[in-house]
């Protein structure tokens, strides 16, 4: 009927494309590309319908649920999953210090949601944090330590300090 287009995009700094076979059908969920094909399992599947945010990644710096993104729409985009986050990042440090990860299954998505917030609003208020993370369900923490972590990371990366991006 209609051919699928060739497509290529950047995944955590590496180019993936249909030409080299690293992307299959355009209808493939970005989540499956990450987990099953690229073997990058830091992105988790909690519901498969965009409700829990465990699969959240950044596409061109914006937070998306990778279970609701077909790879066919990503031509030319830059995708960052938790594996693409700098290993040393104020958020990572702040999450560890605050005890913001318990079971950890929501944490990569939560960290990326926080990253997207801080990139847009470097010094967020608690209300900003609560709005920005509302699509990332956590069942362990009651969120309190996550609020602390994100606000601390903002302070750590604040004016005159290194970090952030």
């Amino acid at each position: 009927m209609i051919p699928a287009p060739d497509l290529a995009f950047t995944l955590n700094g590496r180019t993936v494309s249909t030409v080299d076979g690293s992307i299959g059908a355009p209808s493939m969920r970005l989540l499956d590309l990450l987990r099953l094909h690229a073997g990058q399992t830091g992105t988790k599947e909690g519901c498969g319908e965009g409700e829990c945010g465990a699969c959240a990644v950044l596409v061109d710096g914006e937070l998306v649920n990778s279970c609701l993104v077909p790879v066919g729409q990503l031509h030319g985009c830059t995708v960052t999953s938790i594996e693409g986050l700098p290993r040393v990042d104020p958020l990572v440090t702040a999450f560890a210090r605050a005890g913001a990860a318990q079971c950890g299954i929501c944490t990569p998505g939560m960290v990326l949601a926080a990253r997207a917030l801080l990139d847009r609003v470097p010094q967020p208020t608690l209300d900003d944090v609560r709005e920005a993370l509302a699509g990332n369900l956590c069942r362990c923490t009651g969120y309190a330590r996550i609020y602390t972590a994100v606000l601390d990371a903002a302070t750590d990366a604040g004016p005159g300090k290194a970090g952030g991006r």
Partner: protein
Amino acid sequence: MPVPDVAGSVAPGTAAAAVAGGASPSSRAARGLLGAAVARKDGPAKILGEARYVDDLVLPGMLHGATVRTRAAGGILERIEFGSGIDWDSFVVVTAADVPGINATQMIEQDQPVLAEHRFRHAGEPVLLLAHADRGLLREAVEAVTLHERADPSPVFSIDDALALRGEVVPGNVYRDYLMSRGDLAAGEAAAEVFFEGRFETGAQEHVYIEPQGMIAYVDAAGVLVVEGSLQCPYYVLGTLTAVTGRDAGSVRVVHCTTGGGFGGKEDYPSQLAAHAALLTLKAGGRPVKLVYDRAEDMLATPKRHPSRTLVRIGAGRDGRLCFLDVDFVLDGGAYTTLSPVVLSRGVIHAPGAYACANARVRGRAVATSHPPNGAFRGFGAPQSIFAIEQAMDGLAEALGMSPLELRRMNMLRPGDRSVPGQTIDATTDFDAVLDQALHESGYLEKRDAFAEFNAANAAAGRPLRRGIGLATFHHGAGFTGNGEVVLASEARVRANVDGCVEVVASSSEMGQGSTTTLCQIVASALGLPLERVSQAPVDTHDVPDSGPTVASRTCMVVGLIVEQAARLLRAELIQKAGLPASGADEHAFAAACARYLDGHPRLEAQARYEPPANVQWDETVFEGSPYASYAWAAYVAEVEIDLATCEVALSGFTAVQEVGKVVNPVIAAGQVEGGVVQGIGFALFEKVAWGNTGTMANNRLTNYIIPTTADIPPVQVFFQEQPGGIGPAGAKGLGELPMDGPGPAILSAVNFALGTRISSLPVMPEDVMAALSAHALRVAA
């Protein structure tokens, strides 16, 4: 597994005597480690997405499994039809006929088949397992199977219907009927001057661990059946696997994967799921099979918190002193026994609340219905019965014309009191101090007045906002109920390697609650080592002893105590046989001693076994004695704001004060309380399981089963008090489940305060608030 000569069992409370020479370590690194806010050991790997959960594992040649389930709410399975258009030979197919051993999950009873064969009791019961390398084909195959069922004509979907025998799931519909009776109820009733009577209900609650349940099974090169997965209780799983496969424990291994939340939901069900994965791999000649549920299947098939119905009659003198208490507590156990008897017993024991009452009767029943079995969920029956008694206390206070606070203050348990079950409250208990702090931190008294004024002014002006504040006071027993810990006789080990690194060797399973870090802190502290020298060995039943299941707020307190004893034994052994200085040794001296010891011994390991304190005696037959070795005490205050235009209840503040003996890690402990409180908020205000017409969860999607988001949850204030009266390390008590008990009653009290209503069930949804307001308006008009 052989254990070296240092192994020995040590009774709690006698540690100093049993481990002579094990005086407190003096290393600077270890000093103050118990109580230190050290970062979680599992934090970085989880934050960076490097931790491997079961669904992250890919094994060579791995197949994917799927489950075909019954549709009717009980009935007879007449035939399985395999549709056309599927190459069935390419699938691994397992039915009940393929079960080599006993076709039953090994819980309290063996009534629940691993795969239904003929008679089944609920919709969603597993019948047929399929495995294939291609998940797309697997999905098509599941759809191509037709189960020919003859449905039961009268399934039972409610507690009332079960008790009235409108349909019979099992003869009589009652799994257990317990009675806890103290004093003279008739005399108490005769003495009482003011009475309250109420009926209270709580709904089912789904765990919503964000990682759905999953297992991988395979047969390794040595012929051992290995099952790895998301679970809380490795030895429960092992018990079912050996029974189902007919293999001995030596040829079955259960391995715990990083587990994405449990909350009780991965206590019993993983045994079923592991059996399914095992049956598939055995049928597939040992090829790895991954069986991971999607969210919809997880919510449909796995246990929920037991719905409850509680009748309470309570009476007091005009001064407010309780004269009698009569509780009829019923849990909906669902279609198989599973854990219902023990959930029930905890619920019965907590039903009188944290109050003294000389004349009391609690009857508890777990009934059979046609729902999938309900099971363990944080709090384990106590949140349901504590909800009822706390609401009844509010009702009695109103009848007395007293404040709910005064009534509680008058009747709360204090040192020397005997609780209704028969436990003498120990001298370290200071419930008043807990309550006082909760009142102070929340501003309870001031807000009560201010909110009442605010409401009156708004009512007069026709404005829609109302505010409410509610209080709950309660305690929660830690560890297995009654003689449970005696039966478990849990064991754990501490192992040191030649480089002086130490492993905690226990079956306690990290699922987010922080047990790995906590246990390592305890061991590091006992050995005088910095925390980074201690880790937890992988939880693998071929290596770790049975430390009991990871449930019941018991890990820090009970297993912590065992590993602490084992660490002291190991240290004593090193002092005695390897020249470890008895004081002042740092990690280098420790490592050197380990190296010296291991030069002449094959391994360096110490084991200890739990023996309950002598004063903890429990008579299961009459429900009398001391059911728990330690209790944590709490007072919670909830504040709500309600918009009458929509009847939405917004939580505007929450204060949780608890006395937990010893806070081993403040960050982890606070995280447990914050998380538990928010689950309790969900239980109270958001989470409603909608049952479909065959008795399974109809809203089995995260879109429709609503747990709180960040937007719904303001920061919760958490405070700890420490009275080192617990049996755990440094006096620690269990605290994991405690925070689930308080939010329900405190929030509903706040709602009823705000509106003047008498809502008596949870969850309280806006629709319920609206209905109650209509009823209230009618009552006021009349």
